[in-house]
């Protein structure tokens, strides 16, 4: 049996799963839409991956990341649960040694990670606004009836990008509509939008950060060639899109699971066939004090596995 590691990254828009071998190379990867149902998506995704991989592989470590990491970690039996910023940094430095800047744009958030000598020295993440992220691009693509996969190609065909306001998604959209009603063609508007998003990213997330080459551009949005070109233009340097740009978070989680497995023993991974198990979460408001914490309960096949959300730890302990 060959050893392998599983990484699962469940974000707002996509759910990514990868299986790595001992050396850290990707054996298989899946990029799925979360569609608001993280539990079912992970169950189905795991089953599909289990069918695909070599039956001689033995998963000896599993990691979870992304905004649903705690929930998913319990569902799959993850050995390590890590935030997506650290996971992305781990994956990037494994793929490109000596990387100094990581640009990551996902469905709901965008981040910049600054690395020096293989260590994260600074990072930033968008705080109150999701302009410039994948969801906004999705929305604009469907408004223009262009498949999101072709969005970038349109931008590349533009000769004269139109200037689009980039500060806020709502401003950007109304500006795009104004320009479209004046008769500008879609290519120029889309290219303009890409430039506006990059400006917005640099002014918000990238503000005050020292951006040095090599720069890696990852996350689902890196599929958009128009954005890659806009970054190259604005930064005055080549940004690199790694081969598995869309599942880098999951790769990071799998690499962290490999580190974990090297130190500790038996994995808690429940296997690929968990679609038969019923997972359920319910919540209630604690009446113990004026804080009125919202306590979430997690059930596996009707059995209470965990509780969280209470500030004082009272319910959490009772569940254990």
């Amino acid at each position: 049996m060959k050893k392998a590691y599983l990484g699962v990254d469940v974000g707002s828009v996509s759910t990514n799963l990868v299986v790595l071998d001992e050396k850290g190379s990707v054996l298989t990867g899946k990029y799925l839409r979360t569609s608001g149902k993280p539990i079912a998506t992970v169950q189905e995704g795991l089953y599909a991956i289990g069918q695909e991989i070599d039956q001689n592989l033995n998963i000896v470590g599993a990691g979870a990341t992304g905004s649903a990491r705690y929930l998913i970690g319990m569902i799959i039996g993850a050995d390590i649960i890590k935030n997506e910023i650290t996971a992305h940094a781990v994956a990037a430095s494994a793929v490109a040694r000596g990387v100094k800047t990581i640009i990551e744009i996902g469905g709901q958030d965008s981040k910049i990670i600054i690395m020096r000598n293989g260590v994260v020295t600074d990072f930033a993440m968008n705080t109150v606004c999701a302009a410039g992220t994948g969801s906004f691009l999705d929305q604009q693509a469907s408004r223009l009836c262009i498949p999101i996969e072709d969005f970038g190609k349109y931008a590349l065909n533009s000769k004269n990008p139109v200037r689009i306001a980039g500060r806020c998604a709502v401003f950007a959209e109304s500006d795009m509509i104004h320009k479209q009603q004046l008769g500008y063609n879609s290519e120029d508007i889309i290219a303009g939008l890409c430039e506006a998003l990059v400006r917005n990213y640099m002014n918000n997330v990238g503000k005050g950060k020292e951006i040095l080459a090599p720069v890696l551009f990852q996350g689902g949005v890196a599929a958009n060639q128009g954005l890659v070109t806009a970054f190259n233009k604005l930064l005055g340097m080549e940004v690199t899109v790694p081969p598995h740009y869309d599942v880098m978070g999951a790769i990071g989680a799998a690499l962290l699971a490999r580190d974990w497995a090297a130190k500790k023993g038996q994995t808690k991974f429940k296997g690929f066939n968990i679609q038969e198990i019923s997972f359920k979460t319910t919540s209630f408001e604690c009446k113990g004090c004026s804080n009125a914490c919202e306590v979430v309960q997690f059930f596996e096949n009707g059995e209470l596995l965990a509780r969280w959300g209470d500030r004082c730890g009272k319910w959490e302990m009772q569940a254990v």
Partner: protein
Amino acid sequence: MKISFPHMGHSFIAFKWLVEHLGHECIVPPEPSKKTLDLGVRYSPEFACIPFKILMGTYLEAEEMGAEVILTSGGCGPCRAGYYWVMHQYLLEEMGSKLKVVAFEPPMLDIRDFWKKLSWIRKSGKVSWKHFIEVMKITWEKIKAIDDVEIHSHEIRPYEINRGDTTRAVARALEQLDQADTISQIKEARDAGVKLLDELPRDRGRNPLKIGIIGEIYVVLEPSANHYLQIMLGEMGVQTHRSIYLSGYARESTISNGGEAIYQVAKPYLDELCIGGHGVNSIGETILYARHGFDGVVQLAPFSCIPEIVAKSIIPSVSRDFDIPVLTLFIDEQTGKAGVQTRLEAFVDLLEMRRQSKEEAARLVV
């Protein structure tokens, strides 16, 4: 009169005692909740910052509970918070509320106004000046004792073995402090509280990171406004110290507040006119935390807060020069704590990796 005031952390315990012993009835403001936020957002200007909205909601809740007067603080700009009480009063009147907002400006600004308001409270409560001064003294002791217990809890929490032990012990200690009426009782309750914390089962083998918390006063002081940041970090195994404690203004501490010193420290980075709020403090305190060997700093800023935005744009050079990472969190209406948690976890990872690689480097030198 039925008096209430803004909710800021545990300070209400001392202020409640103060109001009651000045011959008035105290309406204890409820801890800001979703309801407070809903009320505040509904009746505040859209572009006001989160402290304005939370206070608006608090005042309306206090009125519902019977309050007639709100005691609060003013300020002399350039931060717009100095004008907030005027705005609150105006909005309340517009809604047809009878609530009266009374703000104490810094005494040096208008000593007569300060004196007038103080006398009004004393006279309407029918207490003598002698009694008034005595009550002030005891209140001050209470504020200090409350802060002592809280400061100690943030040092102890990263060592706790059972999550929540520290938080529950703090609640018990504060109950005792709430009952104390004399200076000696306060001292006793304080010592008992500290002892209670010290006796909790803890893992002394841990070596917690140290993070300083800086930023705008309200979001720094009111845990419900900052997602209980210090408790969250404590439970991740981090010791925290915040730059602002109510008792800190007049007390000697390693990280000083408000005084001249902080302006001197910040001077190489900001030598312009005063930018208001706690902007200059944020710059100076970052430097002080670096000098005191802290591993990192978290800056808390209400969304759209000008002083903190100015500080934020200067902090990267401070951070570089003093080699101390700073994470800025902007706070607005969002109540989901997942986003804050992700950023804090990543920040803690960053600090831990830095510490490891520094230790590694030190070992190589030896």
